[in-house]
């Protein structure tokens, strides 16, 4: 049995990775069709007011917009394969550098939001599932629905208005400029750099800036955790082994904890990873709300500048990240749960 399992695991992983290639190709094609084939001239959209007709024509030539579409398409796909995501039109920067410079802030924010969501969502979900249809269940479920129903920019607005002032919390940026210059950049992730430097004031400063945006984004996904954990808890508590445990005379608390909670948490691990796509969408909205200097803010900046090159590059990277993470989760799942591999 063990031999058969270990034999099929590499094959499963290989299969999963091979299947991802056509998926990525289709996504790239969709992005290309939507952003390039569509009518309108991207170069004059981004730079129309700034350059004269001759300079515009030169830029068009340099960016390859005068060539046939099929050649442009080949260029795009082959450069993505070489991890070149193009340059922005408006300020002429490689997209990869934009993502590297701002990715750290986005990673910090999304990670902190995840921690908030897990800390709030899982206990509340377990509680609601355990006491189904009681008052805590009603209150927690309503909270879950409300936290999903409230757009992140509305939560951000309320927090800035009513919480930031009284608690003296800042509402923009990932640290004060003083901290940014004090901390030696090693990983380009400010929180990690601050922790590595061991500078107490810097760590506190970074965390203070992080609290409100992370809470805002965390609340968005905690509703999903609440709902998921609650439903899992309901289904687990109906399972035969829970009934068997009860029949053996094990106390209610022990049954709930050992047989209920633990098993209800297993599917959560899977879904945690799948929330990544939602988290990215949420970050794009949270970052401008708090002027958080991440990729989301950059994307909005380029959208407002009508910069097709930047939007295409950033969206491509986002899409690749989501697909790769979903593969990673599938592989981790296969490692944990042999039934997935079949």
């Amino acid at each position, binding site marked *: 049995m063990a031999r058969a399992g270990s034999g099929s695991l590499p094959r499963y992983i290989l299969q999963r990775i091979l299947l991802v290639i056509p998926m990525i190709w289709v996504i790239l094609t969709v992005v290309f069709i939507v952003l390039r084939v569509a009518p309108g001239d991207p170069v004059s959209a981004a730079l129309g007011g700034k350059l004269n007709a001759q300079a515009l024509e030169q830029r068009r030539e340099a960016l390859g917009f005068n060539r046939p579409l099929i050649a442009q398409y080949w260029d795009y796909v082959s450069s993505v394969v070489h991890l070149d995501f193009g340059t922005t039109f408006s300020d002429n920067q490689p997209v990869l550098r934009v993502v590297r410079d701002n990715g750290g802030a986005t990673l910090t924010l999304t990670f902190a939001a995840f921690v908030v969501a897990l800390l709030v969502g899982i206990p509340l979900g377990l509680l609601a599932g355990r006491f189904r249809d009681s008052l805590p269940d009603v209150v927690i479920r309503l909270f879950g629905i409300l936290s999903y129903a409230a757009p992140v920019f509305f939560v951000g607005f309320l927090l800035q208005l009513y919480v930031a002032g009284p608690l003296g919390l800042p509402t923009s940026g990932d640290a004060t400029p003083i901290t940014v210059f004090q901390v030696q950049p090693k990983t380009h992730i400010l929180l990690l750099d601050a922790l590595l430097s061991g500078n107490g004031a810097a760590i506190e400063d970074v965390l203070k800036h992080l609290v409100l945006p992370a809470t805002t984004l965390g609340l968005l996904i905690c509703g999903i955790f609440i709902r998921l954990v609650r439903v899992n808890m309901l289904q687990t508590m109906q399972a035969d082994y829970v009934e068997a445990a009860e029949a053996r005379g094990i106390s209610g608390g022990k049954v709930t904890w050992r047989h209920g909670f633990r098993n209800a948490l297993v599917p959560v691990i899977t879904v945690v990873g799948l929330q990544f796509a939602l988290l990215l969408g949420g970050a794009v909205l949270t970052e401008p709300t708090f002027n958080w200097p991440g990729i989301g803010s950059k994307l909005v900046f380029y*959208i407002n500048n009508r910069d097709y090159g930047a939007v295409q590059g950033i969206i491509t990277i*986002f899409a690749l990240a989501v697909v790769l993470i979903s593969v990673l989760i599938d592989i981790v799942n296969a490692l944990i749960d042999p039934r997935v591999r079949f």
Partner: protein
Amino acid sequence: MRGVAARLLKPFTETAGLARWMLVAGVLLTAVFVVCAVFAPWLAPYGFAQTSSHGVAFPKLGHPSSQHWFGTDRLFFDVFSRVIWGARTALEVVLLSIFFCVAIGVPLGIASGYYGGWFDRILVLVMDAMYTFPSFLLAIVFSFLLTDVYGGSLVAVSLSLTAVYIPQYFRVVRNTTLSAKQATYVEAARAIGASDGVIMRRYLFQNVIQSVPVLGTLNAADAILTLAGLGFLGLGIQSTDAAEWGHDLNRALADAGGGVWWTGLYPGLAIVLLVTGLTLVGEGLNETLNPTLRRRRLLPVVLPGRAASTPAEEEQS
């Protein structure tokens, strides 16, 4: 007619206690916004882009008062009127995008499921790719493009939402078609010489279309949030074309620093309440339709009491 009424009431009659209350609350909340949307011209005291009344200009960022219940914003607009007109925008966009989803997704799904083969495989691959794509980013890409082509109009935003939700309609319709085309009546139709077009239009369409209302209800809450998100990023509808809550919140964010709360609070509450209402309806439907969660209304069973318990049982307990 009675059959239709019974089916519409099924979620109410088959739920009990909490589930029913949540469903009723959801329907009521949603109904309030639908009324606002339909009767906006009569309910709202002013137009959504009106800056003066009877020759008197509205104040800029005016406090809530008897003339302006929810105050005025930095563009001199009346916030209360914009909240009510916003309901109309939201309803129009959601209905329009459901219409596009049905108009494009249903025929594609039927054809894909009916013909199968490479046509089916390619469509499934493309739709799956669109479904994997982070939905909000997809909406951003489409509206970024469509606002360039069509300007920030209702149609552009609705089409962006359509791009997000169409894979779901396609999937459901395709899978229903796959099972429906095996049915005896389809075989019979083919035997009497019906063409592919006739089979798809007259036999399959009727069967497949029934899943659309449920899908529409389940997606509506999400669609409202996506619409507001696009509006917040400035990719949606312009303020003078229609009232849109998300875009109003974008402008309100600048006011928050100065302690102005009324320009953001009310549009935000409107989004929260409408989405909550729609979610409650969706959850209520889910609890009745999903057999793993369903709890039917049970009548209490009263067992006749026994005269006295035996000593042996006393010891055990």
